[in-house]
């Protein structure tokens, strides 16, 4: 982070009680300091604009750093507006970017990095020392002012290093924003898919309930044994349990999303559109995925900056390795017999034992380690991209197959079973089971659809960048999933 700790501050000062001496020293030093260092005040924005820019390249949503108490009210208001009506995925991401507290805490890293950046541009304060020694003869007064010039020599290097570190922190913060957006997307699709699949499961439960009721009526009329009636009842009971379990799962997923969105109290009662969006008919062709990921991944960019920091530190340390202490000052002395002495003062360390060799070796090891870590990260990133892309394509193919092959087969089975029922060749239980199987197949379709969208979000995360605009999900679906409340007669 900040300048290597080998730069020590020197505190050797001699000075007289003469005001003019102090003024002169001070002014000289102040001049030199002002010339060398930059502005010493801390800007409020702390580089957040750069974060916003990096985020804007990847997301449509806006990031905002809420630092004032009065801004909190505006954020709450904005979130409430977004929560109105159905919660879309874009709205969910926006709410998270505004409202997620961990992200807001992350932004404070910028402030901290900013202070480090400013600190690196500050020179050490000169040191004033006074000595007043009384003897039997008289009083000896010695006044000194000294400045550590090593930190002046290394100032620009320190500032470059701090600027690089600041950029690294900005990149890391942007990466956190991107990561949060990805988590929100995945969890959004999970909840949306869960809800839609749950509705279909309710229909299945309704079918088993009808079977159980028919069995009960049959038993009362004397046409079904208690054993067979009990079997039907068991299927229904099991289905009820399955439903309860899925409802619990759904609740847990909703809460995970609430955590990501920072919602609590009455705000957790949001509802999503009833259907997941349909996939695009064909996937956009994506080229150079791995190369783009290497370019765009924020964690890789941050890792590069870390390497740069270590390299800069290594260079600076190598440059000044033999110079451990270097102080220049001015001393004024009034002896006890009234003589006035003045003159410059110089101090530096003699590199007899420590020539910085251990320090250099340490930095070299750290540099190599950081480089290997970055290489490893690049390998992982490439693999992540390939994995995500494969899953994206595979789930899309499965969706097509389910929709074009499997769902129509189940529809045909229900139809043929209905024909058999019409001819008293099959019974109503067979018909209900055929319907349940069809609905279960539709549930599997929904779950695959959910997996497809999650795979697309994961691919974006692996890329570190959004996919092309044409890969954005379209509006609500026209999928032929059996909606049990429609009497379309389309058998």
């Amino acid at each position, binding site marked *: 982070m900040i300048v290597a700790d080998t730069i020590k501050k020197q505190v050797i000062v001699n000075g007289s009680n003469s005001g003019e001496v102090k003024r002169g020293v001070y002014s000289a030093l102040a001049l030199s300091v002002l010339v060398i260092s930059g502005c010493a005040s801390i800007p409020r924005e702390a580089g957040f604009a750069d974060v916003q820019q990096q985020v804007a390249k990847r997301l449509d949503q806006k990031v905002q750093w809420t630092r004032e108490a009065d801004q909190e009210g505006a954020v709450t208001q904005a979130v409430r507006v977004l929560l109105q009506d159905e919660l879309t995925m874009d709205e969910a991401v926006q709410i998270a970017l505004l409202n997620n507290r961990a992200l807001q805490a992350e932004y404070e890293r910028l402030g901290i990095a900013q202070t480090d950046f400013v600190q690196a541009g500050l020179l050490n304060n000169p040191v004033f020392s006074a000595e007043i020694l009384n003897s039997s003869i008289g009083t000896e007064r010695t006044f000194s002012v000294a400045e550590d010039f090593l930190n002046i020599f290394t100032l620009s290097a320190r500032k470059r290093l701090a600027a690089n570190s600041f950029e690294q922190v900005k990149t890391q913060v942007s990466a956190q924003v991107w990561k949060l957006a990805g988590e929100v997307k995945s969890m959004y699709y999970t909840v949306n898919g869960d809800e839609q699949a749950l509705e279909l499961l309710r229909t299945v439960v309704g*079918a088993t309930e009808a079977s159980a009721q*028919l069995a009960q*009526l049959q038993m009362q*009329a004397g046409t079904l044994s208690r054993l067979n009636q009990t079997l039907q009842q068991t299927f229904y009971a099991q289905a009820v349990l399955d439903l309860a379990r899925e409802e619990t799962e759904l609740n847990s997923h909703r809460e995970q999303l609430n955590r990501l969105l920072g919602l609590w109290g009455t705000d957790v009662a949001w509802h999503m559109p009833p259907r997941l969006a349909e996939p695009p008919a064909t996937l956009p062709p994506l080229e150079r995925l791995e190369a783009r990921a290497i370019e765009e991944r924020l964690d890789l960019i941050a890792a590069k900056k870390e390497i740069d920091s270590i390299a800069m530190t290594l260079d600076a340390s190598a440059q000044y390795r033999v110079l451990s202490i270097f102080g220049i000052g001015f001393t004024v002395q009034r002896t006890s017999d009234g003589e006035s002495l003045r003159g410059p003062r110089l101090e530096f360390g003699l590199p007899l034992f420590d020539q910085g060799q251990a320090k250099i070796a340490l930095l070299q090891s750290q540099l190599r380690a950081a480089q290997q870590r970055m290489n490893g990260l690049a390998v992982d990133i490439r693999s992540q991209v390939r994995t995500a892309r494969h899953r994206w394509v595979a789930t899309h193919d499965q969706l097509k197959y389910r929709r074009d092959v499997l769902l129509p087969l189940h529809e045909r089975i229900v139809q043929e079973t*209905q024909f058999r029922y019409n*001819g008293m060749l099959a019974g*109503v239980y067979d018909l*209900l089971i055929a319907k349940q199987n069809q609905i279960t197949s539709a549930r599997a379709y929904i779950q695959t659809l959910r997996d497809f969208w999650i795979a697309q979000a994961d691919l974006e995360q692996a890329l570190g960048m959004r996919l092309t605009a044409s890969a954005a999900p379209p509006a609500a679906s026209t999928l032929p999933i059996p909606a049990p409340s429609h*009497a379309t007669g*389309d058998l």
Partner: protein
Amino acid sequence: MKISRRDMLLASAAMLVGAPAVATARTASAPPRTSQPASKSGAETLSKSARYTPVVTPNGSTLPWHMDNGVKVFQLIAEPVKREFAPGMVVNCWGYNGQTPGPTIEALEGDRVRILVTNNLPEPTSVHWHGIFLPSGMDGVAGLNQPHIPPGKTFVYEFTLRQNGTFMYHSHSDEMLQMALGMMGMFIIHPRTPPAPHIDRDFCIMLHAWDVDPGTYTPNPAEMLDFNMWTFNSRIFPGIDPLVMRLGDRVRIRLANLSMTSHPIHLHGHNFHVTGTDGGWLPPSALWPEVTTNVPVGSIRVIEFIADNPGDWAFHCHKSHHTMNAMGHTVPNMLGVDQKDVAKKVGALLPDYMAMGESGMGDMGMMQDMGMPLPENTLPMATGNGPFGPIEMGGMLTVVKIRADIAPGDYRDPGWYQHPPGTVAYELKEK
């Protein structure tokens, strides 16, 4: 009124199905025929050379022959055939000369017959002449009496008929399968001098059973017990021709059974006597009266009665499932089950659903009238309408139609019986 037998015979000259025309060309070289429409039991011209009352095979035909040096030559072509069991159901069967059952062979006692059997099946076959006394090598049990007839080849069976009566012919090579697919027919041998009393109408009915899974087109030959289609001459009611007769006719019906179970055949409105089997004729003193005769497997029962009760009379197998078409035997029993509330729930899931079975199976007719679709190539369980409503039967059922105003030799369907007033069961009206 006494009519001479000769007059009767001549009168019956202008009749009947399957006239054995005297053909000049040898039919053995005729190209194999595929599916032919089943001929009706209407009249066809009878050659003057006939000397007997020819039998009528409802929904069937009689095999033509030609004379070759004193030998009556017949041609049977064993081939796959498509048989319409009733409108709406066509089955891939194996039969003879385009039909199952094959054409009825009709000859005289004493005839020397030569039967050419051409095999157009995909596997070897043979023909056994059930109940007929003949040389062992002509008996037709492939492997035992003769080599199997290879596909594409023609074998010749030749023997002299030394008896008269009612017999059958059927495959005896891969017998179980070939019979299950319909390879059978009737073989009638008339006496040279028909004994009194004279038979006015003589019908042949081959009983059979098939397992045709709903939605399929080919019988399952491996089925042993669970058959679902029951036929008279490979037809199903209402696709079975009625047996039309004049009031007062002496009627003979020859029932042959090559299915896997017996069939108690029942006639309404009359009683009859069993006068013969495939073993021979019963002496008159041995006849006993019946309204139902059980025809065992591999047997023939010949019944005779006087059609003295005018009207439309059901004639059917009395095993009630045999007058039903394909049924689901594992369908849940909804008798007495009030399904109203649950039916709504089910209807929400399945828009075409209608609750059935609460008050019996009569709903089926209503379902069909409403056009509820069935699996393809599947007949409703019971169908066919009579003049007073749905008859609610299928399978082995036909109607004996006795009318006073039918001309001799006229086998055409006279329509429904016009009941004399006061002879129809009526509803008692409240005052």
